[in-house]
């Protein structure tokens, strides 16, 4: 078991009170597993990714634990986490296009990064070059400034840099959203290749695009309003989803071959609840077509079959 997260709670401090972006999230990640984390904007998926690597100033670790390779991650302690970042936990940020220092050449920037970690650039240079070649970039990009590279190239440089120290956990936050289809596919397949070649042990891929994450993930988790509502192997979640929210999300996806005239796709009415004062019971209740009185109580997590968990009263 690479990662074991139990009842993790992370809140954002605001003037009006605490926004409960993560409100009791538990899951585990096996060695070599790619987990896709999907959901609407504001459901807490980015917060979950971030809280495993760095809490920013507004975020507060309220409760719960995350255990990586048998060691508990000191989530709330920025200094103690720093020793683990990049080596044990690494992230490909959401706007990785702007993650590179515009005033440094790529090679110089990498050497500074490595020096800050007490590593020598010379030792890593060969490995760095061979990994860059693996993603289709020549050694000469090390002498380029970020502005000289295209969006897709920058994305690949950041991917190589993030995984250079072979972290056990990699968080890929919306890495494909800013790219067009052909680049999207190349980047997504590179993530899988990095796992297969052992550069990273396991991975959490955060995205809002279910059809993309289906292509690469072993397991998919769907989040809604700060909680995980369904978790299952990728094939199961697409073919036989149990939670009404997952069903609605899949129902709203246009596929190649479907036309406006034939069949009208349905959106999900309403909007997610505000997490400043989240409602009690099932949080999807107000938008759910199946909701009834029992949904006013907290839904139980039902294990439908091995590896398929649903937080819904109607799951059976």
């Amino acid at each position, binding site marked *: 078991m690479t990662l074991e997260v139990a009842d993790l709670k992370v809140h954002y401090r605001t003037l009006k009170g605490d926004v409960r972006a993560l409100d009791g999230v538990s899951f585990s990640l096996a060695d070599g597993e790619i987990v896709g984390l999907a959901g*609407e*904007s504001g459901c807490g998926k980015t917060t979950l990714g971030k809280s495993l690597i760095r809490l920013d100033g507004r975020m507060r670790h309220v409760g719960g634990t995350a255990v990586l390779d048998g060691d508990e991650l000191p989530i709330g302690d920025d200094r103690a986490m720093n020793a683990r970042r990049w080596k044990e936990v690494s992230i490909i940020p959401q706007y990785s296009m702007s993650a590179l220092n515009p005033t440094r050449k790529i090679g110089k920037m990498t050497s500074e990064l490595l020096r800050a970690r007490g590593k020598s650039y010379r030792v890593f240079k060969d490995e760095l070059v061979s990994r860059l070649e693996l993603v289709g970039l020549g050694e000469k990009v090390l002498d380029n400034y970020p502005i000289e590279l295209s*969006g897709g190239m920058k994305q690949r440089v950041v991917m190589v840099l993030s995984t250079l120290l072979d972290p056990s956990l990699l968080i890929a936050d919306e890495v494909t959203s800013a*790219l*067009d*289809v*052909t*680049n*999207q*596919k190349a980047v*997504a*397949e590179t993530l899988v290749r990095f796992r297969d070649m052992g550069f990273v042990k396991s991975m959490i891929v955060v995205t*809002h*695009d*279910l*059809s*993309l994450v*289906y*292509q690469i993930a072993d397991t998919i988790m769907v989040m809604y309003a700060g909680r995980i509502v369904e978790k299952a192997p990728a094939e199961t979640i*697409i073919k036989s989803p149990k939670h009404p929210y997952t069903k*609605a*999300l*899949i129902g*709203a*996806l*246009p*596929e*190649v*071959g*479907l*036309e*406006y005239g034939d069949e*009208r*796709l*349905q*959106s*999900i009415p309403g*909007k997610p609840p505000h997490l400043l004062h989240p409602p009690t019971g099932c949080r999807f209740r107000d938008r759910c077509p199946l909701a009834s009185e029992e949904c006013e109580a907290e839904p139980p997590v039902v294990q439908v079959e091995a590896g398929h968990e649903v937080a819904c009263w109607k799951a059976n």
Partner: protein
Amino acid sequence: MLELKHVWKSYRVGALGSKRLTAVRDVSIDIAPGEVLSVVGESGSGKTTIGKMVLQLTSVTKGQILLDGEDVTARGHAARKAYYRRVQGVFQDPFSSYNPIFKADRIFETVRESYFADVKRAEWTARVEDVLQGVRLDPGSVLGKYPHQLSGGQLQRMLIARALLLDIKVLVADEIISMLDASTRIDVLNLLGELKERGLGVLFITHDLSLANYISERVVIMRHGAVVESGTTGKVFTDPRHPYSRNLLASVPQLHRKWSDSEAVPEKLEADGDRDLDPAPLTEVDEGHWVAAHP
């Protein structure tokens, strides 16, 4: 109705405009009333430039843009203002389309100031409520709010409502749903479908083939500034003739097909050559289905 005839566009780039970049090469397309035409392509294919030229946000280097048979390019302020009565655009990022300092409904007020200064307040309010209902928004819940209080889908639909106040004929929709959530984007997409049923022509610019397929009758696929394939959506998507179109279709992530299951290797494509030359000529392979010459 709207017609582009052999349109070219080159931008000046580099220090003091020392270099030229040809973004659109010899593109001819037309949109009929009640039709959604999708322009699909990768970043840098020139699709957004086409939208900008139609909206006259940038000049046309060579060629003509005709609206109802009348050349509309490069005219004075008054003519342009009249043109905007008939052609409007909505863009990708709804959050930066609004001024965050003002309430979101100010966009309706600016239309009134420019075009309908003599319409009475009460009548105007009724009109605004009318178009809001037309885009499936509840006037009570969106009027008087600031942009940050509304969702991306609501903001985007308000921009469409604003365009509808002007009694437009053509709407340029440039990636209007790529920033929206899966749960709300369908509402905006279905709205475009309703607009076309009301006789509006829509130029739908996107990089997402599944969206283009869902909403449009005809599709134009662009690469390196030129058209590589065009035709009715059904034909282009079931029988793509150009290797680039085939590659594009193979990379779309879909729920019923995994990339790892397909054996197909991406086909080799021509590199980007001299963009000042005429692009590869189009030949008609089937009724209304045109494909650029390829090796």
